[in-house]
Every structure is written in structure tokens, then in C-alpha cells.
């Protein structure tokens, strides 16, 4: 189980979450930040840090938001060049 950054982060990328993550698993994505699903330890430190409530536990994703977890997996699978 992991945390996921949803669409509210797009073009906001406030980065407060990056400061909080104890395992440094939040990376700069295309237009938003991305949590690496294999590195996230499910601690929840990032969730309250987000000023736009963009971070959700994967279990809390609305059906329309599940795409963001898939997108994160795809983003890291293709390498962060």
C-alpha cells in the first residue's frame, strides 16, 4: 500500500511533501510530483503536508483518481530521464 499524488498537484508542485518524506521517494514528474510506488513505505508523512490536499492513500482514491497510481507506476517504469 502506498500514497499517491493526484491531479491537484499539476502545475502546483509545492514540494512541501518532498521535505517531509523520510525515504526521499517523491520525485519531480512531468507537470506534477510523483511518489515512487516501490519506495514509499506508507508512513503518511506527506499527506498532511500538501497545501492542496493532492496526496491520498491508494485506498482513498476516488474511481476517477486511480489513474494517478497507474501513471506513477508508468512514470517510474519508463525511467526518470
Amino acid at each position, binding site marked *: *500500500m502506498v500514497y499517491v499524488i493526484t491531479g491537484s498537484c499539476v502545475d502546483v508542485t509545492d514540494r512541501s511533501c518532498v*521535505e*517531509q*518524506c*523520510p*525515504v526521499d521517494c517523491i520525485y519531480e514528474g512531468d507537470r506534477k510530483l510523483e511518489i515512487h510506488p516501490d519506495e514509499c*513505505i*506508507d*508512513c*503518511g*508523512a*506527506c*499527506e*498532511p503536508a500538501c497545501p492542496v*490536499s493532492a496526496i*491520498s*492513500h491508494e*485506498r*482513498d482514491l476516488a474511481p476517477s483518481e486511480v489513474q494517478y497510481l497507474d501513471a506513477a507506476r508508468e512514470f517510474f517504469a519508463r525511467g526518470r530521464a
Partner: protein
Amino acid sequence: MTRTPASDGPREPLCGLEVAVVGAGPSGVFATQELLRTGAHSVTVIDRLPAPYGLLRYGVAPDHQQMKQLIGSLQQVLTDPRVRFVGGVEVGRDLATTTLRERFDAIVYAAGAPIGRPLGVPGEGLPGVFTSEQFVGWYNAHPDHAVEDQLLHGPCAVVIGGGNVALDVARILLLDPDELVRTDVPDHVLASLRATRFTDVHVVVRRGAKEANFTTKELRELGELPGVGVIVDGSGLPDPSAEPDTRSRIARNLELFAGWAAEPAKPTRARLHFHFGFSVREAVGTDRVASVRLRPTFSETSDTDDDLLLRAQLLVSAVGYRGREIQGIPTDPDSGIVTNVDGRIHRGGRVSLGEYVVGWQARGPSGVIGTSKVDARQVASHLVEDASALRARRPLGTARDPLSVRGLGWAHWERIELAEQALGERRGASSVKLFTWTSLRSATP
């Protein structure tokens, strides 16, 4: 990293400084990590326990193995060649803070907030009443709280508190003990949990469902325990859709509570009850706790008509923590927070050069593990700023002598790990913790 020209002094701002970090928990290790990134060449990390990792080892619940992955990153820092781990040394008791100041240029306090707050109600001294420090310490094998005899009595328990610690305690009491076989809990903890099956665990929150500090994930976990029903009175619950941010933690928690309240009762092996707006008044019993008296928190009158008497053979208070005062360090006696401004320790109203504090010892016990990273960055930048003053303060012609601070080192901790792995093998677990001071000091079961 930005480097200053060689002519301006040392290339690395922290070069040549001897730094001590007091506490090998997340806040201490994050501070160490940040100091190394800033160019520190020598950091001595001192802990009162022979084992590192603080709350990760002794606070995080045994069934939350994913969180423990963080141990890997902390281990990387503690095994860095520039870092020396000194375990089994309590600063302020075994080692005076004045001695520490003689041997190090800078000291970062990161001793956390380990002391569980008591309830302060009659009957608290009865057997069967514990603070979360004692209870969590017991199941997590903290050597200060080892009780090998049967500790638990059931079948009913009351847990006081509106935070994740209360949820951890409730979950440990309610889950199937077989779930813990593969974790690192000691055998006697497993035996005690197996011998006492709880049918009813009551979580009592002083304020409302909205004010509770539960994390949604932890709350949801309770509802998913096999064979456990969650019972909430829906009549007083705030409407989740009235929340300004319906994606917030509070809104999600309220949705969970509303869902449980709406569920028709069905027969289950055990029940978890939430009581909001109640405060504990008294633990009742003769030779041990038998029931707990609650009263509505905001009751205007002193009459006892609205009191709730819950049958309970176990009462755990999870109402917060405070720091352990270190002798020689200015500390608020109530909160245990070290007197500081933005992480610089103050003495007599002025900054005390070379003394810093991070984590819960600086701020009090709030935030999940990870919140201390911000403190770590702050303290590293303070040290960079203070570096030349710290160098100038050194008595001329003398060298700091960090190696004179001795204790149980990293090699000893590795022996403890080996002993724990051997214990784990018998049970199919990757390790089972040693739980007494003697066993930790000798690294043998």
C-alpha cells in the same frame, strides 16, 4: 553543494568539528544524515539503549512492517565510516552533559518524548492500568517495560486517547495473535495475547470524532480486522459532507465513522467501540481494575447520571508523551521540551553556542516519523553558520576527544541482531527481539 574557496577556511564548513548526537531514533539519525551531507567528518551518535532506531524499533507496531523499511535508510547513515554509534549510555546519568561539552564542539539533542502521560484519576495505581509507554513498551520489547508473567486480563479493555497510539493498542488487542507470529514480538507477549482473547475493546476520545487525530489509514485498518465489528453511535457524528475539504483526513475519518454507524450489527468474535466526548473519571476495582467510569467531557453539572461505567480488566491511557529531562539541559518540566528557539538551545534567555535540539525533544510529540527531517536541515544550517565560532571557542592546542566516550558499539548491536535472528528462526520470523537489559547488554537471549 556549494564550496567556499580554500583560502576562506576549510573547504567543508563542518570540517574538523566533533559533533555528538544524543539519541539514535529517527530525529537523531536524520540530523546525522543532514550533517554528513553538509560535510561533517565525525559524528558520534549516543543512545541510552544498546539498540538504535528509537521509536522505529520501540514505537511502531509490530504488524506495521512496511514502516520498518525506514530502518534500512537509518542503518545506512549509522554505518557510514564518519559515524560512530555508542549504545547503552544515558546522557545526564552515565555521562554528564558538561563532559559532553568538553569532548565535542557541538551537541545535537534528539532524545524524543518517551514518557507516557498518566491519566491523573483515582484508581490509576491499580494492577491492570498502564500508560501507552508501558503497554507499547511491553509488546515492543522495550527493556524498561518487560513483564514476562501473564500481563493481560480480559475479555474487556478500555483505551483512552484520540490518536494513532490508541488505535495501535486497540488493534494489537483485537487482532488474531497468529498475525504476530512472523513479527519480532517476544514469545511471552505472544503467549499473553493468545491466553487473553478480548471480546470488547473501547476507545474513549475526550473530544468529538472531528477533533480526533486518527490517521485514516490506521482507522480503516481496524474496520478490516477479521471477525471484529466496529460500533459507533451515529447520533452525535458530524456530517462529513459539511467539511470544507471533503478530501481531508477529517472528512475521510468522519465517512468511516458514518459507515460503521450505519452498518447493521452482526455477530462477530469481538467488537471495537468508539466513545466520543467522554473523559475518564476513575478506574474502579479492589485488587485490580474491574471497570472504568467515564463522564461526558463537557458536562456542565457534577451529577453522575450521565456517567458510563464500562467493564474492563485492562485500562491503557494513550493520552500523549513528554520528554525525559536530561540533567543539565534546560527543559520545561511539564512538556519535557528543551528550551529552544528554532532548534538552538537557550540558557538563561540566550543562545547556548554549540547546543541544539531536534525532533520531539524540540517540539513535543506530534507528527509522524519523517516530520523530523525539516528539523534536521535546520540544525545542519545552524551548525554551518556557527562553525567558525565553534572552532574559535576551542581551547588553544587541545584536541577534542570523542573516542573517550565509550559504550556498546555498532559491533555489539550486530551481535544483538544475530541473537535476535537466531530467536526468530525457531518461530519462522526473521527476528524476535531481546527484551531485557541483561540480554541486550550481553547480546544473548
